[in-house]
């Protein structure tokens, strides 16, 4: 059922839903897409969600949607909305269930030639070793079980906790968004149940679209910026990790949605969809959620930190060289399901806003204090994962993003087919063979996950990235293609 509301073309990459569409809209909607994609986008009611988000009290600027927009819970996936830090609202639906689901990229000084041809099929050995070293799949349990004291530290210190425990180095923290730790996290705001769900899952990849890939650099678009990120040549080996806050984050979202639904009544907020449930920024409900969300975000940063450590260990074991010798440094780590208090210039004035990014990535321009020192002259690396047969991208943040999208861009490809349909259409063995012929080794925790995650079940990430590049809200730096894939 296609959405019938008004969409006006602004230019080749921008489409507007006028504020006049519905009387409660406080601003217009802006969707980044090309002419072909906008027809698909109309297909699943996501534009209605973009219009609904425009109802949020205190929304600043437009209700935004990135080109990988699709239907989500309350907010569309790919939705971005900024709300005023004094009289706006915070909405858990603007973050999603998998709080701080994100992507981390590790570089190496290895090349495809050296690794695969020179020393005889090491990709397969590396993936097999990582598969043993990093727990994954439905119901997977971590290698460590957190006691309550350590749990509270994870929730308040994030990746820093992991580094203190010997998982990685102090230098790693410099290359994580927020240095892998939201300081405003308060573990007393996380309910016992969430902590229990998280106790046995730290250091696990999870299942579904979460993955770990060994990739190689396939194209470099901007050699100068690439060099700053440590990307030196075509064929260079990288490791990409995509996972989030696991059951802990899901439970934090579940627990707070219930409170927020009551808050909507309590504060008499008029919303067109009850899944946009929110509360005024200074209310106890919003403050509690923001502190608990920060804990879940910290858990996710610690989670990815443990996985990085075990990936390094696997490389060391298989290749017999230290991670340092292999130059296995973190390029960056981005959060793509999160709400953050940030300062932006709006209509010529500096303003503090809560930027909700749900399936959207921060894309800050050069010069921002939030960036690692080494990147401050070029801008923030933006990591965009694609499906296991196509590509992933490294982009860089731009001034245009700061002006138009509160420094935000897309987050990935997005599904185009349900899992059930994918299982029906693609047999595991066929998917594996096809990928194998392309030189990609795949290992899944289950047979179904390979079918579900078949490349053709996804939209083409190249289209999504071309739109953000064309629109100027993030610029292509390098393209990575998969060589070895681990699916949970």
């Amino acid at each position, binding site marked *: 059922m296609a959405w019938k509301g008004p969409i006006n073309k602004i230019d080749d990459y921008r489409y507007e839903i006028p504020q006049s569409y519905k009387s409660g809209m406080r601003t217009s909607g802006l969707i980044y897409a090309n002419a072909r994609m906008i027809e698909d986008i109309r297909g699943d009611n996501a534009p209605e969600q973009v219009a609904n988000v425009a109802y949020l009290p205190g929304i600043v600027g437009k209700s935004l949607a990135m080109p990988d927009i*699709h239907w989500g819970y309350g907010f569309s996936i790919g939705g971005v909305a900024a709300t005023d830090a004094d009289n706006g609202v915070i909405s858990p639906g603007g973050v999603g269930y998998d709080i701080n689901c994100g992507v981390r990229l590790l570089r190496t000084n290895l090349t495809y030639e050296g690794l695969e041809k020179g020393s005889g099929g090491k990709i397969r050995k590396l993936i097999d070793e990582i598969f043993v070293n990093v727990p994954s799949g439905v119901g997977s349990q971590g290698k460590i079980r957190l006691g309550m004291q350590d749990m509270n530290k994870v929730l308040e210190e994030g990746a820093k906790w992991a580094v203190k425990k010997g998982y990685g180095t102090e230098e790693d923290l410099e290359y994580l968004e927020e240095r892998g730790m939201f300081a405003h996290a308060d573990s007393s705001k996380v309910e016992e149940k969430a902590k229990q769900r998280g106790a*046995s899952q730290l250091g696990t990849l999870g299942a579904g679209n979460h993955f770990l890939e060994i990739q190689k650099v396939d194209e470099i678009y901007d050699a100068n910026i690439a060099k700053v990120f440590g990307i030196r040549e075509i064929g260079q080996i990288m490791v990409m990790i995509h996972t989030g806050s696991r059951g802990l984050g899901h439970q934090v979202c579940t627990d707070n949605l219930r409170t927020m639904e009551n808050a909507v009544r309590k504060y008499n907020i008029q919303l067109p969809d009850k899944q946009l449930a929110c509360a005024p920024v200074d209310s106890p409900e919003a403050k509690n959620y923001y502190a608990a969300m920060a804990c879940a975000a910290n858990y996710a940063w610690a989670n990815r930190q443990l996985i990085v450590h075990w990936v390094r260990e696997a490389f060391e074991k298989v290749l017999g060289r230290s991670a340092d010798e292999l130059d296995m440094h973190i390029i960056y780590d981005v959060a793509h399901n999160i709400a953050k208090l940030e300062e932006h210039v709006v209509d010529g004035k500096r303003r503090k806003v809560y930027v909700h990014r749900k399936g959207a990535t921060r894309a800050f321009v050069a010069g921002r204090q939030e960036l690692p020192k080494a990147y401050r002259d070029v801008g923030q690396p933006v990591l965009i994962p694609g499906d296991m047969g196509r590509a992933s991208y490294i982009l860089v943040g731009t001034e245009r993003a700061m002006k138009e999208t509160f420094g935000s861009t897309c987050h990935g490809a997005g599904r185009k087919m349900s899992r059930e349909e994918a299982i029906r259409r693609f047999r595991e063995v066929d998917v594996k063979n096809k990928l194998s012929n392309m030189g990609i080794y795949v290992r899944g925790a289950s047979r179904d996950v390979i079918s579900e995650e078949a490349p053709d079940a996804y939209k083409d990430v190249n289209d999504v990235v071309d739109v953000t590049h064309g629109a100027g809200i993030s610029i292509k730096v390098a393209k990575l293609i998969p060589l070895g894939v681990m699916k949970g």
Partner: protein
Amino acid sequence: MPFKIFEHTADVGIIVEAKSREGIYEEAGRAMFSIIGELSKIEEKDKYEFEIESDSYDALLVDFLSELLFLHETNNSLFSKFKVRIKEIKKEGGKEGEKKVHLSASVWGEKISKKHTLKTAIKAVTYHMLSFEKKHKGYIAKVLFDI
């Protein structure tokens, strides 16, 4: 078929029919674990009991399934048999005649082991498209999961 699974592009949901309200909760439990694993392979070895309360029957369904998801993850277990009792009780501090619904459940299942094929990880039970209605001589309910 007392329950049906339906899929949207990136999500999965259930439609459950039963003669009684209790039956809706019990079938919904079965439906959820048929998404996570294979019901026929889950033996009724361990028993868990819990009680919850909510303001309405549909919210109670979300809370019930969320509780099962919590037990599944924290006990590393799968469940295949569900027995619930529900009763309406007076809402504490509520207005005259305001009720809420109390549910006590017994669920049976076993620890996850090699014999189980796990299919889909459910992240959360959502309120989206949530319904719980009377139909003919029974009830019908719909729930969507975030996966």
